[in-house]
């Protein structure tokens, strides 16, 4: 405070049953203006005071900090049913104060004060939210199925351009990143297998290990993760922004179902494209394994290829492809669901995008486990 030659000052004077507060100096927010509460706490104020009077003869400059002080004073005075006398304040200050007061008064409804809810309340709220989310998920599945049925009987108006665009985005456009990731996963698998199997002197099974792991698990999962991050997020943000701009409303009021028009093409596009990308991913993974086997185990390429095809069969590949088609549906489903339920704001779009990715990853992993159980029961 000593840095400033002139700071805010107060003087208190009791004049009969009138409490006079004199405001002086410069009242600025960054000059440590006093708070009214502290001021009241410090000064011993007699109980029989009936009027609070403010004077500002020595006041030099002021900003909102003074306004804030005055408002606190007014609330304090009103709380003790004192007269609040601001007649001696400069004109502008008085008017400004009145305006602040009025804004507070004209608020129609004050939102419930949200303090810290109790533990039980939190648990209850969360449970309700989970149930509500569950029904939202289920509803959307139903709506997509209905929309698909409408398409089958030729009643749905689908936007094929969107379908092709979804296929392009999740297919050709995603190949570089899917390729790189799959290749590296293949390399990693091969290193692990070579080390682990080498301990038992059976490095020779490396091609089998890489091929089976890629085709049955890693190919579909890695592709699913990349597409969830790329395409699923894009779906959520596109549809979410359309919702914010009322474009979805504009479709609805034309009698066009946004499900048929926007969601269905994306679901169909991804369910077709994902298995195709997975085939590519499998191939790149196996090539990665081949490279490691060649370098580390000195295994000829022909042997590697022969071993690979000896150990996987059509069922394994089909298993992975069916799974990945389901992953495609999940990604499109999660992306569209989050987009359609997006809040109408730009943060809403961001949240929708994030939660689309999280939802699809979660569902992909869950679906993958279910597939693992089903296939193990039927011993595929």
């Amino acid at each position, binding site marked *: 405070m000593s840095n400033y030659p002139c700071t805010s000052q107060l003087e208190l004077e009791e004049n009969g049953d009138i409490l006079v507060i004199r405001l002086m100096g410069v009242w600025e927010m960054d000059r440590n203006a006093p708070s009214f509460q502290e001021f009241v706490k410090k000064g011993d104020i007699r109980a029989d005071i009936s009027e609070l009077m403010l004077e500002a003869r020595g006041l030099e400059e002021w900003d909102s900090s003074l306004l804030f002080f005055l408002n606190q004073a007014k609330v304090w005075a009103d709380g003790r049913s004192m007269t609040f006398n601001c007649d001696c304040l400069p004109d502008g200050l008085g008017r400004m104060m009145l*305006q602040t007061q*009025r804004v507070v008064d004209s608020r129609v409804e004050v939102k419930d004060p949200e303090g810290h809810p109790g533990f039980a309340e939190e648990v209850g709220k969360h449970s309700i939210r989970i149930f509500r989310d569950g029904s939202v998920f289920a509803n959307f599945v139903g709506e997509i199925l209905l929309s698909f049925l409408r398409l089958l009987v030729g009643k749905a108006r689908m936007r094929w351009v969107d379908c092709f665009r979804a296929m392009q985005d999740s297919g050709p456009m995603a190949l570089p990143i899917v390729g790189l990731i799959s290749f590296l996963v293949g390399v990693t698998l091969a290193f692990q297998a070579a080390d682990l199997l080498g301990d038992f002197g059976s490095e020779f099974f490396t091609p089998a290990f890489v091929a089976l792991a890629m085709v049955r698990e890693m190919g579909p999962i890695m592709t699913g993760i990349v597409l969830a991050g790329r395409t699923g997020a894009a779906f959520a943000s596109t549809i979410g922004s*359309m919702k914010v701009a009322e*474009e979805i*409303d504009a479709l609805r*009021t*034309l009698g066009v179902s946004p499900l048929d028009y926007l969601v269905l093409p994306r679901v169909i596009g991804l369910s077709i494209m994902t298995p195709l990308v997975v085939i590519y991913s499998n191939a790149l993974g196996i090539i990665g394994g081949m490279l490691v086997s060649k370098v580390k185990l000195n295994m000829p390429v022909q042997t590697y290829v022969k071993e690979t095809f000896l150990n996987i069969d059509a069922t394994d590949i089909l298993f992975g492809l069916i799974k990945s088609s389901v992953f495609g549906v999940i990604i499109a489903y999660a992306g569209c669901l989050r987009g359609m339920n997006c809040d109408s704001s730009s943060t809403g779009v961001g949240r929708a995008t994030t939660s689309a990715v999280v939802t699809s990853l979660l569902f992909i992993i869950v679906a993958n486990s279910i597939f693992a159980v089903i296939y193990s029961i039927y011993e595929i």
Partner: protein
Amino acid sequence: MNKVPHIEVKDLVCAYGDYLVLRDISFEIKRAEILVIMGRSGCGKSTLLKHMIGLREPAEGKVYYDGKDFTSSSEAERESMLRKFGILYQGGALWSSMTLEENVAFPLEEYTDLKRSQIHDIVEMKLSQVGLKGFQKFYPSELSGGMRKRAGLARAMALDPEILFFDEPTSGLDPISSKRLDDLILNLRDLFNTTVVVVTHELDSIFSIADQAIMLSPKEKTIIGCGNPQELIRNSGDPTVTDFLSRMGGRQPA
């Protein structure tokens, strides 16, 4: 003449979940009448509009068009009613992945059996009506806010609707464009007997186009004034309405 009001809203209650927005909303609009829904920000004007066009389902009450129940109509009935609406949304709500031409053509492709060339001609005509001839191949993102709004209007007018709904049509437009839009609304009404519902709080527009106005209040959550704005300003009896229409009569807000 037909005695049945073109639009009738009866005992409408609008709520978002438990949160009541509006209650006891009842009014009628005759054919070829221009109704303005006005009120201060946050009073539920747009919400009321959304309930009228079926984007939100009322908590209670009904909306009738030509005496036909819209609220509890079947899907097919509702579709045939929606076909007669033209709606201009606040930001235009053009589909961003389509060009202006595709945007305006969409309702025509959806509801008519016109040939491609015919649609092309109609689109050109509608776009020139709103002063956007030559912009057919532009995407919405390449246009200014005002142009998007006008293009939205061209799309709303594509099917020669019987009822036009406007959600804050002149907000964000310069005075000249606002005036043009107001004139266009009046022309549409005079030429095609279009019934028009406008949500706005722009006084100039209210006084130049409205046959009838209803004023909503966030405090009472219902209609607090109803009638021709010229008469409302003189004898509504409610100071809130008079203050609104006269910009507080030039007084300092008290």
